[in-house]
């Protein structure tokens, strides 16, 4: 499904080069749930953005279903079946929740949820009442938790082959964490071929994973089954 080969990402800071990702390689199979974890600044979000096509690799390759997509932009990757949930949801003046979910469910090659019932259903899945939210503007009148849930709904709407969530638990303090876990479980049940990559620090999310990737200083420090990772992390604490 997804192969990341020797991925490196550097930025210039004054005269210095800052290495954010250093020769990162891993793969994700269809139906697999992989959690990427690691300390702040270890390169997790950058890695997610590189897979989604928002940032461009300095070196290396991204392969999706055997095809090198390293030079494809994020629109092309979205149309090829990659969905990406941002850590910090974006505000829009004028665009409503309905607009966003309709764009998400009808654009590109993936297609689902074109009608009101399905768009409403997406909101119900993330614990929001569609009657109250569909015609709200996606602006700062919504709380951080509400925006995050709408962000997650927009990604579920994609019905994608590979879904990347960047810290989905961040900001959803009011919404019970159980609902989020339920969303992931439902996705796995309803789309058994869909690969899910979650950037998270939450133990309950890590326990759901088939595999854990631990990033440290832009390198993979561990890549293995969830149980082994949890044990290793407990031992090193």
């Amino acid at each position, binding site marked *: 499904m997804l192969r990341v080969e020797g991925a490196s990402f550097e930025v210039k800071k004054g005269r210095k080069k800052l290495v954010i990702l250093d020769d990162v390689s891993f793969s994700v199979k269809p139906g697999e749930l992989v959690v990427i974890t690691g300390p702040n600044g270890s390169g997790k979000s950058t890695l997610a953005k590189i897979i*989604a*096509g*928002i940032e461009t690799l300095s070196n290396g390759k991204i392969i999706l279903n055997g095809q090198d997509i390293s030079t494809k*932009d*994020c*629109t092309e990757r*979205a*149309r090829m079946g990659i*969905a*990406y949930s*941002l850590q910090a949801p*974006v*505000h*829009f*003046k*004028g*665009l*409503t929740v309905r*607009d*966003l979910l309709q*764009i*998400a469910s009808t*654009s*590109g*090659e*993936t297609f689902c949820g074109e009608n009101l019932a399905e768009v409403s259903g997406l909101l119900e899945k993330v614990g929001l009442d569609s009657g109250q939210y569909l015609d709200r503007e996606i602006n700062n009148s919504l709380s951080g938790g509400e925006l995050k849930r709408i962000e997650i709904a*927009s990604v579920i709407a*994609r019905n994608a082959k590979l879904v990347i969530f960047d810290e989905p638990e961040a900001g959803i303090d009011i919404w019970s964490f159980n609902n989020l876990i339920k969303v992931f479980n439902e996705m796995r049940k309803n789309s058994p071929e869909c690969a899910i990559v979650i950037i998270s620090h939450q133990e309950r999310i890590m326990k759901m994973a088939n595999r854990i990737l631990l990033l440290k200083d832009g390198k993979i420090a561990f890549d293995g089954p969830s149980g082994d990772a949890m044990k290793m992390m407990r031992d090193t604490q």
Partner: protein
Amino acid sequence: MMDLDKIERDLMREVSGVTGIPEGAYNFRVNGKSIGRHSSDKIDIIPKRGKSGIDIRIANNTRGEIAHIPVIISASGLKEAVYNDFYIGDNCEVTIIAGCGIYNCGADDSIHDGIHTFYVGKNSTVYYIEKHCGIGPGAGKILNPTTKLFLSEGSRAELLMEQIKGVDSAKRLTEAELKKDAQVVIKERLFTHGKQLAESKIVANLLGDNSSVDIVSRAVARDYSVQDFSSHIIGKAKCWGHSECDAIIMDNARVNAEPALDAQNIDAELIHEAAIGKIANDQLMKLMTLGLSRRQAEAQIINGFLK
């Protein structure tokens, strides 16, 4: 519908939503002449003598009625100033749908100056919708609307004024004078492109206690177009005034926003907000990760913003 060609019919639909003879009172002005006029029991439309325009007299207690007064210009080089005066009785709730569309395929500028004056009776509400657009490969499509509002005690006016596309030059002036407990909401949407110029000046005089004005202007300027926006709220009583001007600037456009507040009473509460900026990159990125191209994402953001 009436005696209009396809272009005129399309323009009529675009600026006023009219596709046939509407219910209620109407006056259709095409190329400087009224081609259809109808008064209802409670809304009387009378042509002015000695100058272009109509008087629209609305009886007390008229509720739920709509009057359509669209203007179409398809004769290149036509220049007109039209004076429409609205006398709205007490305790009314009415909707006025205006709007002007110009099609110009000739070498001379077509100009429509529409001067609308509203006298709104006590405890009445008027909704006013005005849409402007221009099409055709010819010379200038120029629209200069003036809207004056005199709001009696306890009355309310809600204005939605849109300039959607193709207007080469516009000088917009909106003035409101509010008595006790009167309210006005002014929503303006301006889109300019090419080398168009648009100027909008809004002046609200809050004269009576508990009067209020809310001005919300959203504008998009692209290509080499220039927009000049100013709002001036004058509070002479215990009142509330708010002006919000938001603009998206693109390409080589220029946007100038000057909101001004003038409090002349210690209980006048006046606020202004103005923001000009390009389309945020994170907005584009979010929509692109949903499968839209950059161009499609831009269009969605602009459409939403001007909605």
